[in-house]
């Protein structure tokens, strides 16, 4: 346990103080730690045979880069990029606006709903937040919405991206824990819907306390609403193609990503939104994001090899069993740690750092891995909007340079509370996440 904790502290030092890229820091600590456990010491630094530790790392590098189930990562990212480029996200917002815009705070509600819809085809929260910021911020400003409410609803709505399937984070969780990705996707659906409802409630609460922050817009007529609904058929069609194909057994969830990207490509072509430079920009952006994600995953796997060899999972289990508290109590302690870590980390790093440590413990306590995956993703989502490091907030302030991060954080508190409420619900009522996968797949 001591070795694992010391190395964890060193890792934090490397990434927080020295600002070493997470991937490299995890790989470095993993390799050196592994070597340490194989007999490396201060006296034999030069004569030590590094081959074992390096071979461990290189086998992770070689096989993770060729891991079939991870092929969904570039493909889902590409799908999201193509869809945004074709202007589908604009239409999605217009449609939700048509139905909700005339309520007080209605544009914020429309933003949350549109974020949820966009999440159904985009696998990443950051991408969801960045996209919807460009789409939803201008109209909210036009109607005199307070910047803090407007931006907070985008930042919070964006977190839905990794819970409502497809989700890059759930795929990575599935890989790290060898749980079924299809069941994880199904399990994320209802908690995602619950998230939308609670965010809507948070908006209602804000405009009830401060009516001036979210004035009502004009009512849209029914013919206009029908018109707006018609425009979302592109995005709806894509969603039905991807999810329907999986459900009907035409293709696997892994293949669904390729089909979705293909469908998005066809839509982009039909709308004439592609030319060669644009295409190049889209695919190379996808490639860069992919490489970034893969390098942290490889780093985390190397680090987890070391953590396992150091015996941390067994020690943790012994410690917890020794405490004599109920398994549910253990889960809540883990969640508390997550919320605390969430102040410093963004979602992916947090998932990669902690799942290798906590998952074996949770599994040995007899909890459902799919349920734990959803719980972890929800708590990870919270980290995206928890100060001081809330990645969604940062992305937003990068996309909207004139909005200060402080303003966004100020507006986010009600949404954050809604998230905590949802976390408690999902943790204590496992039915919420497990009913759908059980219904569909068993």
């Amino acid at each position, binding site marked *: 346990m001591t070795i694992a904790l010391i190395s964890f502290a060193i890792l934090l030092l490397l990434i927080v103080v020295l600002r070493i890229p997470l991937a490299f820091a995890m790989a470095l600590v993993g390799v050196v730690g592994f070597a340490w456990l194989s007999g490396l010491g201060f006296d034999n630094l030069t004569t030590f045979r590094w081959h074992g530790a390096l071979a461990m790392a290189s*086998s992770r590098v*070689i*096989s993770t880069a060729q891991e079939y189930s991870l092929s969904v990562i570039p493909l889902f990212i590409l799908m999201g990029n193509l869809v945004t480029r074709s202007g589908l996200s604009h239409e999605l917002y217009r449609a939700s606006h048509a139905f909700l815009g005339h309520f007080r705070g209605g544009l914020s509600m429309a933003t949350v709903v549109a974020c949820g819809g966009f999440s159904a085809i985009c696998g990443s929260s950051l991408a969801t937040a960045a996209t919807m910021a460009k789409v939803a911020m201008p109209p909210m400003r036009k109607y005199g919405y307070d910047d803090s409410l407007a931006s907070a609803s985008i930042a919070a709505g964006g977190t839905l991206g990794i819970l409502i399937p497809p989700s890059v984070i759930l795929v990575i969780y599935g890989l790290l824990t060898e749980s079924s990705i299809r069941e994880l996707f199904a399990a994320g659906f209802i908690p995602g819907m619950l998230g939308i409802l609670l965010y809507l409630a948070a908006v209602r609460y804000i405009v009830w306390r401060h009516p001036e922050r979210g004035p009502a817009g004009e009512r849209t007529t029914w013919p206009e609403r029908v018109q707006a609904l018609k425009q979302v058929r592109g995005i709806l069609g894509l969603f039905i193609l991807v999810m329907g194909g999986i459900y009907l057994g035409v293709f*696997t969830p892994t293949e669904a990503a390729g089909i979705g990207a293909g469908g998005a490509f066809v839509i982009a072509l039909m709308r004439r939104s592609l030319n060669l430079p644009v295409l190049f920009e889209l695919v190379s952006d996808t490639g860069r994001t992919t490489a970034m994600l893969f390098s942290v995953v490889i780093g985390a796997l190397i680090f987890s090899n070391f953590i*396992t060899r150091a015996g941390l999972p067994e020690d943790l289990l012994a410690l917890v069993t020794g405490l004599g508290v109920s398994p549910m109590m253990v889960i809540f302690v883990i969640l508390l740690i997550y919320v605390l870590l969430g102040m410093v980390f963004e979602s992916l790093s947090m998932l990669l750092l902690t799942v290798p440590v906590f998952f074996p413990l949770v599994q040995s306590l007899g909890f459902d891995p799919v349920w734990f995956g959803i719980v972890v993703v929800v708590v990870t989502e919270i980290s995206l909007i928890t100060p001081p490091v809330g990645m969604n907030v940062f992305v937003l302030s990068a996309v909207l340079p004139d909005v200060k991060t402080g303003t966004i954080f100020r507006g986010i508190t009600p949404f954050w509370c809604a998230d905590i409420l949802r976390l408690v619900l999902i943790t204590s009522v496992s039915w919420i996440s497990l009913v759908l996968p059980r219904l569909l797949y068993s």
Partner: protein
Amino acid sequence: ATEMRVATWLPPTHPQNTDVLPTWGKWIEEATEGRVTLKLEYNMGHPKDMFALVEDGVVDASWTFHGYVPGRFRLTQIVEQPGLGADAEAASVAYWRVYEKYFTKANEHDGLELMGLFTHAPGQIQTANPISSLADLRGMKIRLGGGIQGELGGRMEVTPVNAPASKVYEMMQQGVIDGTFLPVCEQKTLRLSEVAPNLTLLPGGMYLGSFAIFANPDFLDSLDPKDKEAIMKVSGEKLSQMAGQVWDQCGVDALKASREAGVNVVEVGQNDPMAKQFQTLSEGMDKVWIQSVSDLDVDAEKALQELRDTARNYKPNVAAN
């Protein structure tokens, strides 16, 4: 005590991890009077990485399926050839003896110390819908592993779908595939009884799958010579036999459970048309294999004959443990 770290894969509940490796560990501990103990390590990587992990000393020993590393292991296909007509225990014992006698000099397991060789119980046809003839398989989407299964699938003119065995449940249930070739044991370990409720058992099965258990030579040399000798004594044929036995038992248990769960089990008789069809279909595959290893300096034909004789005449003695 020295810890012998054995990298393993498949879920912790699989008989390989609950029976084979722990029993081997118990033998080792007894034989070395507790100076060497065995520790299982999970999640070390893909099964195909196990050879390299052991060779590079990341772990001390491991086991894996030869078919994951095609090209390197060609002689090991000897035991996979259709028509052996033996269970896993008989096949594993014969396999170990014949491989030691004829193929060791070809040095396929270069860089590793071979501790045991075994096969899974015979591969059988597991489908969503019942089949009454091998011709029914034509055009069906069947998940196939590589090597011998690919060849069989080709001769049956199925639509081959390649995917790891662990994905079969998902793909069956969704209807992405209509069936698979796998040992009966997987009805239980992969929960296939739920999604492939039609089990067609050809007499002696269609093919076998070759596995090795191996250790790092430097690790063994680092031990006291008498401990190394003690370990070798509880490995080899003894280990191979026990592994085969466990994998057979898994199939027996799984078949019983599947029957209770209402799986439609069709046992094809030796003289039934389907058995004859299969014989005709698989004819000459052994010749193809012998031809494919003709560049190696080994007598493959004689080895295959001896393997068949040994396996078919094998009488299980009292359980090794």
